[in-house]
């Protein structure tokens, strides 16, 4: 499974004439012309970086922390909170051959990290960081005023920082940052990338895979259910839950907050065991919902001028509440 790298800021955030001229929100050519840096937070320490670089057969070591790779990328390593962050750019022509016109920067970055995973035999991205990927694009904006005017025009109001050389804002639940190093330079924009946790779990060797729809919509209850089944390595983000259970990899994903999770089960060795496990999870999830609902109702009727008249448990384990409406 590949890393999802395609999540561009809208064209107007790079060039306010773009959408007006093209009537499109984005295209690949536009990306190639403007994307000039990808930042990746990794879980690697110095010895990991050194080991990887030795194994990549580097054609040119520009500086101690900067490497020119033979796939057209330049990687600079920066230590950040005990781990290393990779700053990846298309290689500069003066150091290397001219890049082909169809050179795909994001694809090459994706392949590079797959390579890292293979060398270290583990996922190398920092999945505990919310800042796994940042894409940096060149923009045409030369003044802060132009940026603020454009944001205003696009009705983007959630501006979280506004200084001479930096404007930060949130848009469609993502963080963006306009920044420039020198006053005379145009601003560039950093776009936060949220990627699926499972997409970056690498080195999976499928035995059998199963995909199915589930009834589950409640994230907290699903996590509780998985924990009760002793699931390991549980990773959660906005719309995804990944875990390992009975040597299988389970990835629950949904399209939006309201929808039910889809399940992709991987590394299934025994189909019957998998079926039984999924049935157990469904039963347990239902019981957890029943318990949660019971507590909610009892708590909330107090505020509704209602009274619990009686309760009992049926033979089928249903809880029956009779509520006096007063």
């Amino acid at each position: 499974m590949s890393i999802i790298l395609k999540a561009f800021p809208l064209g107007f955030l790079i060039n306010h004439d773009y959408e007006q001229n093209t009537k499109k929100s984005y295209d690949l050519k536009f990306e190639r012309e403007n994307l000039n840096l990808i930042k990746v937070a990794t879980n690697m320490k110095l010895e990991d970086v050194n080991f990887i670089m030795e194994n990549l057969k580097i054609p040119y070591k520009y500086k101690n922390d900067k490497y020119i790779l033979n796939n057209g990328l330049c990687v600079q390593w920066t230590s950040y909170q005990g781990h290393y962050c990779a700053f990846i750019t298309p290689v500069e022509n003066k150091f290397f051959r001219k890049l082909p016109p169809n050179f795909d920067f994001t694809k090459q970055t994706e392949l590079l990290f797959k390579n890292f995973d293979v060398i270290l035999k583990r996922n190398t991205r920092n999945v505990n960081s919310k800042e796994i990927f940042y894409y940096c694009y060149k923009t045409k904006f030369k003044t802060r005023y132009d940026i603020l005017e454009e944001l205003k025009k696009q009705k983007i109001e959630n501006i979280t920082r506004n200084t001479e050389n930096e404007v930060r804002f949130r848009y469609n639940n993502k963080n963006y940052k306009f920044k420039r190093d020198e006053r005379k330079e145009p601003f560039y924009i950093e776009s936060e990338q949220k990627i699926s946790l499972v997409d970056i779990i690498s080195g999976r060797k499928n035995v059998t895979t199963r995909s199915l729809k589930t009834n589950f919509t409640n994230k907290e209850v699903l996590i509780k259910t998985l924990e009760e089944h002793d699931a390991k390595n549980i990773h959660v983000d906005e719309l995804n839950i990944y875990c390992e259970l009975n040597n299988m990899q389970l990835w629950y994903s949904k399209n939006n907050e309201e929808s039910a999770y889809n399940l992709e089960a991987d590394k299934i060795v025994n189909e019957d065991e998998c079926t039984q496990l999924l049935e157990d999870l469904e039963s347990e999830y239902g019981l957890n919902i029943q318990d949660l609902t019971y507590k909610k109702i009892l708590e909330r009727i107090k505020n509704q001028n209602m009274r619990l008249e009686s309760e009992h448990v049926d033979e089928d384990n249903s809880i029956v509440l009779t509520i006096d409406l007063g």
Partner: protein
Amino acid sequence: MGKLKIKLLPDGTIEMETQGIKGKKCLDYAKVLEQLADAKNEKIVKTDEYNQYVYLELDDSQNLSDN
């Protein structure tokens, strides 16, 4: 006044029946249950008493009946 008989099934679904509430007013209690249980109304079945009593069957927010 009246009563609500709420049945919480082990698969997470909820059924509700109103008692002593006549006419369309009992439909209002479907919304009350939605609020009490953070549930979403999936199906309402009217009882035989010709619009006097209403039997409500609700699903909790998990949309279990989707499958």
